[in-house]
């Protein structure tokens, strides 16, 4: 089982000054910054997924790349731009979520393949249109006509895509996109793609599905799956179900959830093999909109806020693992919560995090270098590092899967 990490220009600055919360004056984004595969001793993923809409922009805005970065990606190709170690694979797609509200995709098959070829991807997903709905009993006659149309369109584009890759004798491995709204419709899509000649198929639109719904689809697909056809799950992690996915023919998946939980989830911010902990929130006085408004309105003294923020950081950095040290941290954090006028208190959860001190036991290079800073929910540099740490945990968890042992062993070899 291989894990792909979707790129969203997530990097950290190796020279960031944690004590002053400052970047070096001359830092150049991306170039001087580091990806997860550069700051962790081992790349935490087998591949990266890069969406055209993130690079080139699409319906919803201009993408995440500056003009100069985009030009350099096209010039250098995806491997050199990302400074990927040998053995880390690259997969391109269109980022169909970006145009989900459009009647038809705003890109052509040729533009899609241009992107893959010019950036020199190993593999690329055919142009597709996401069906955002699940009705297991609906047939082509009873389903929402728009879903039926989108599935047809996706298959037609996949046919154009594979014939274009043949015409151009491209080096990019074509990956067919399968859309559906039910086990039967997904299986029909996969069947059609196999007949077109695809040996690798990406299943799209499954992000909102429950695990048993995904399993139902995979079970149905497995009845027509040709030996050797590889399945990729777009946007799905579900580590608990991975072994079952794998048994049904899934060979790879991609997801940002372990990474994003570091700073998006209410509770599961810092992952360990056993469980997830809450990261300790110490927002920056000048970075927290609520606090800024309260200061501007005169209801919070900026001096008090700054003092409370500093005391919280000081206590955390001085934390020695003793109950007294823990109480000092909780007192300082509680005082800061009051100043911040927080709607709810995380103190009980912080007590658990502090008691466990997971960063002290974590072997990943980020926790070793930065210690408690990784557990602090504050600013992009700490939050992304915690996300990278979570990826390293995911990588370890994947190593524990029955079906992926072989793949992971190969992967480790390729990295050395």
């Amino acid at each position, binding site marked *: 089982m291989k894990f792909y990490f979707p790129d969203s220009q997530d990097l950290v600055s190796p020279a960031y000054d944690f004590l002053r919360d400052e970047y070096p004056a001359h830092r150049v984004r991306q170039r001087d910054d580091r990806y997860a595969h550069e700051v962790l001793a081992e790349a935490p993923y087998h591949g990266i997924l890069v969406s055209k809409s993130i690079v080139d922009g699409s319906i919803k805005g201009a993408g995440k790349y500056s003009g100069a970065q985009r030009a350099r990606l096209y*010039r250098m190709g995806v491997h050199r731009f990302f400074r990927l170690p040998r053995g880390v694979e690259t997969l391109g797609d269109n980022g169909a979520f970006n145009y989900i509200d459009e009647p038809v995709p705003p890109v052509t098959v040729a533009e899609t393949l241009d992107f893959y070829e010019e950036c020199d991807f190993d593999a690329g997903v055919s142009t597709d249109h996401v069906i955002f709905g699940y009705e297991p009993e609906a047939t082509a006659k009873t389903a929402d006509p728009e879903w039926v149309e989108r599935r047809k369109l996706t298959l037609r584009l996949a046919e154009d895509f594979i014939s274009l890759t043949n015409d151009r004798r491209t080096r990019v491995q074509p990956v067919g996109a399968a859309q559906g709204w039910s086990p039967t419709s997904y299986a029909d899509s996969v069947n059609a793609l196999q007949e077109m000649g695809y040996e690798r198929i990406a299943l799209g639109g499954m992000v909102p599905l429950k695990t048993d719904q995904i399993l139902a689809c995979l079970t149905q697909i497995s009845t027509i799956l040709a030996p050797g056809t590889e399945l990729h799950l777009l946007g799905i992690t579900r580590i608990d179900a991975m072994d079952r996915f794998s048994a049904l023919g899934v060979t790879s998946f991609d997801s940002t959830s372990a990474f994003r939980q570091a700073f998006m989830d209410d509770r599961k911010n810092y992952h360990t093999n056993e469980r997830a902990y809450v990261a300790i929130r110490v927002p920056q006085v000048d970075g927290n909109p609520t606090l800024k408004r309260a200061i501007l309105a005169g209801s919070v003294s900026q001096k008090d806020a700054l003092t409370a923020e500093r005391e919280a950081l000081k206590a955390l950095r001085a934390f020695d693992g003793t109950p007294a040290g823990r109480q000092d941290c909780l007192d300082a954090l509680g005082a800061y919560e009051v100043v911040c006028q927080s709607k709810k208190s995380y103190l009980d959860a912080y007590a658990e995090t502090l008691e466990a001190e997971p960063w002290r036991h974590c072997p990943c290079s980020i926790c070793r270098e930065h210690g408690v800073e990784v557990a602090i929910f504050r600013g992009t540099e700490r939050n992304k590092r915690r996300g990278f740490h979570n990826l390293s945990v995911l990588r370890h968890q994947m190593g524990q899967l029955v079906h992926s042992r072989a793949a992971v062993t190969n992967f480790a070899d390729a990295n050395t």
Partner: protein
Amino acid sequence: MADCYEIRLPALKIRQGEQAIFAFGVDGKRIHEFTTVSRVHRDDTELQGYQRPEVLSHIRAIRRYLESDGAMLPNAVVLAFDERVSFEASTDRSALDYVTAGELVIPVDESLPDDQKPAWLVDGQQRSAAIRDADLAEFAVAAVGFIAHGEAEQRSQFILVNNTKPLPKGLIHELLPDTEGHLPTAYAKKQLPARVLSALNFGSRADGQPFATRIATPTMANGYIKDNSVLKMIENSLYDGALYQYRDPIDGTGDVDQMLLHLNYFWTVVAVTFPEAWNLPPTKSRLTHGAGIQAMGYVMDQLTDGVPAVELPGLNLEKRVASLRSHCAWTSGNWDFGAEQIRRWNGVQNTPNDVRLLTSHLLRALR
């Protein structure tokens, strides 16, 4: 343990019509002992105080500067005193009848809450906060104070003092190349590109330097290529393109001579390939327009990234750039961006989208 004491500061009283102001020096670390930084808040419905919150990033920048060698804050902070503060003249007369030497006497009562301190900071909030936070034992600043009669008068002074315009960006960029010492981050970053731009502009046209005297800056009003366009092209290349090879990522400095060689070589090829378009102002030519300069900058990066300046003659750039001719409509005709995107020659604007469109078009034509 609250204390009451007096701070006595040597001061000059300067008469201004009916009013008087006091010029004095004071240790910035002590300003907050007797000064309140009143912030805007509402007491029921009445507006109290008048000051905005500290801008922490700005304070950090000043603080870094203060901790650097040879730091100086020449402009005075402005304080509005209330009537508890007095001035004691030390001499009856002075050579100038509008200046009197003496001492300001400021009573300090540590038990008073912040908003009842005898002085209010009208200007210099960020500076005094930076001094307060800085890793220094003391840092004396020049101060100007006046005794205000009521909060309304203080407030009007606050508006007057803060009603200033920042320097125009173009002028700052022009001053940067010959600036030494610590600069705020945003300007420190611009210094190297600005230095390269100025060297391009002050070269000699007789030596065939394509940008010489062509870039419009505040002191080079006859130029017709906007300084900002060239600055963007240089920055793009410096961070993501061909000029990156001359930059030292550790300290952000760069080899300006090699960059000049590189830029002059490539842009000479451009000027020779498109002589008419190169000599016309942006209203008549898209080549000298922001979009053209930036897009051709990407062409430079495409063709010369990683190649040192001395090896550029071996690349046959003349031929590569000439191959673009049939795809360009710098001064007339239409751009054919494909997929039914036809634009008149001047239908390309200096927006990120149009620059991107033009760049893709040119880079595709190269392949």
